[in-house]
């Protein structure tokens, strides 16, 4: 092959690469458009949001966000935060020891337990919501944040156990053995070896669980009404706006979305592991 032909081919392949890059960027921006548009519209006046030709340039205002807070979103935010926070705490307290008993000092037939937990994750909420509603009604726990906390903990427990188990299984056995030969007891090797190695895994697990609790809708809508209602329930108030209040609605949606967006972007390298419960790394 002549040098000229070789160069020509390399040039062609580089041009194709550049074209593919442009295509990729266009596709990515298109897919991001609804989210970008949501944030943009949140900073508009209602007249700008309701124009027939979409406005890309306008005078930004915080008015819509102020209105959303006037409607009292902070109570819902607080409920969401507490439901997520406390359920994560319960999940961590239950899942950490369980993962330990499933990987580092495993019980007999530990795989069976793993699959039992997994199967509870696949059981649809629809199957349990009716009796939960009836029981909650009878013991006065409807519209009570504690109920959501317990249910969210149960929802995330299998995920957390599978993820933590997969992280613990990665701790090299030799390290633990060396420590125990050096006379390190359970507490010492827990604090000095397991915990430091596990910390990134715990953080990733918590972020994934947080995404699921923060965005949860079905249980929140079915089991809460006013005092314990979470952010998704707040959004229900905009359902029948029929295209009016697009700006205010976008501001509310942006506030509702932001915490999980930040958490997810932050943990994106561990996202896939969480979504497949540790099956894909």
């Amino acid at each position: 092959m002549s040098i000229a032909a070789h160069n020509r081919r390399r040039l062609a392949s580089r041009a194709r690469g550049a074209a593919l890059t442009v295509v990729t960027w266009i596709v990515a921006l298109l897919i991001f458009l609804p989210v970008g548009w949501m944030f943009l519209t949140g900073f508009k006046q209602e007249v700008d949001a309701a124009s027939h030709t979409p406005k890309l340039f306008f005078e930004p205002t915080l008015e819509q966000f102020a209105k959303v807070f006037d409607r009292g979103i902070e109570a819902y935010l607080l409920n969401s935060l507490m439901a997520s926070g406390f359920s994560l705490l319960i999940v961590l307290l239950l899942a950490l020891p369980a993962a330990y008993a499933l990987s580092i000092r495993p019980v007999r037939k530990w795989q069976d337990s793993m699959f039992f937990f997994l199967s509870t994750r696949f059981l649809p909420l629809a199957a349990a919501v009716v009796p939960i509603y009836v029981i909650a009604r009878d013991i006065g726990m409807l519209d009570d944040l504690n109920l959501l906390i317990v249910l969210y903990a149960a929802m995330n427990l299998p995920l957390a156990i599978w993820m933590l188990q997969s992280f613990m299984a990665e701790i090299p056995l030799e390290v633990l053995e060396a420590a125990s030969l050096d006379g390190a007891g359970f507490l010492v090797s827990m604090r000095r070896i397991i915990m430091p190695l596990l910390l990134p895994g715990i953080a990733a697990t918590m972020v994934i669980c947080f995404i699921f609790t923060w965005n949860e809708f079905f249980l929140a809508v079915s089991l809460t009404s006013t005092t314990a209602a979470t952010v998704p329930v707040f959004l229900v108030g905009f359902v029948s706006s029929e295209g009016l209040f697009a700006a205010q609605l976008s501001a509310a949606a942006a506030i509702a979305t932001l915490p999980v967006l930040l958490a997810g972007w932050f943990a994106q390298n561990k996202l896939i592991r969480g979504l497949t419960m540790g099956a894909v790394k």
Partner: protein
Amino acid sequence: MTIATEPETLRSGGAPGSPVARRGSRRDDRWRRRAPLLPALVFAVVVTQLPFLLTIWYSLQSWNLLRDDGPTFVGLQNFALVWTSAPFRDAILITVLFTVSAVVLSVIVGMLLALLVHRKFFGRGVVRTLLITPFLVMPAAAALIWKTSFFNPTFGLINWFLGLFGVQGPDWLSTFPGASIVLVMVWQWSPFMMLILLAGLQSQPEEPLEAARVDGANGFQIFRLLTLPHLRRYIELGTVLGAIFIVQTYDTVYMMTNGGPGRSTTNLPFFLYQTAFRDFEIGHAAALGIVVVVCTIILSTFALRMFAKVFKEAR
């Protein structure tokens, strides 16, 4: 409890290789190993399994919470009623249609996205971040935004865009409610598929690809003969996991169409919600719940088998 006394039992699962001890102490050890697992096990059983048993019991009762006369046992009547009712059959059909089309389309879109992002190019990290975003957005919020800013016939971006070409777009949510919902589902779930398939692509060994290239295979042949078979397990995993979550879709339907127009987008979860919390027919709703579970169990069996496979290979 110390690891120091018996380091050889780490990760051995109490295998026959563990040191022979007196029977009593072995049983002690077994319980000591089990103890950290028990709280989680008990919690999962109480919160997830007991309600399910109650669901079975309620499904055999005739019980409307609005008439305060309590439950009466009616046997399998609820199932017969549910099974023969047209709304229920429609809901099943709609659920299947939604799930199959959303899963298939998001696997295809996810595959294209994964192939695009797998190359090295300028701004790859940013593009990846942009692409996973739809999956992170609260589904209820996403549905609202799509409904108000995109599908709306007068102010929506879609019809504005069509208008540029002189096309008068329809009122999407009343003309094509199902397709609109599926579009939003695909938008949300393609990133999920992309992430799984990207992990698959990155795990593919480089040498066979190089060899094929040297042998003169073109990109499409390499994809069909080498990459696709390699990705098979990842596609399966994505399909099954996606199906399990998409079958349960509720927020999108609730926010975008509220099951309508008519019942045209009322899928099983939404139908169950209406039965339980609008009509307060506890018996019917419980029977519906059981049906949903049976469907999910069929799907989950595939999922569990797949996990077992991946799990075994990882050890």
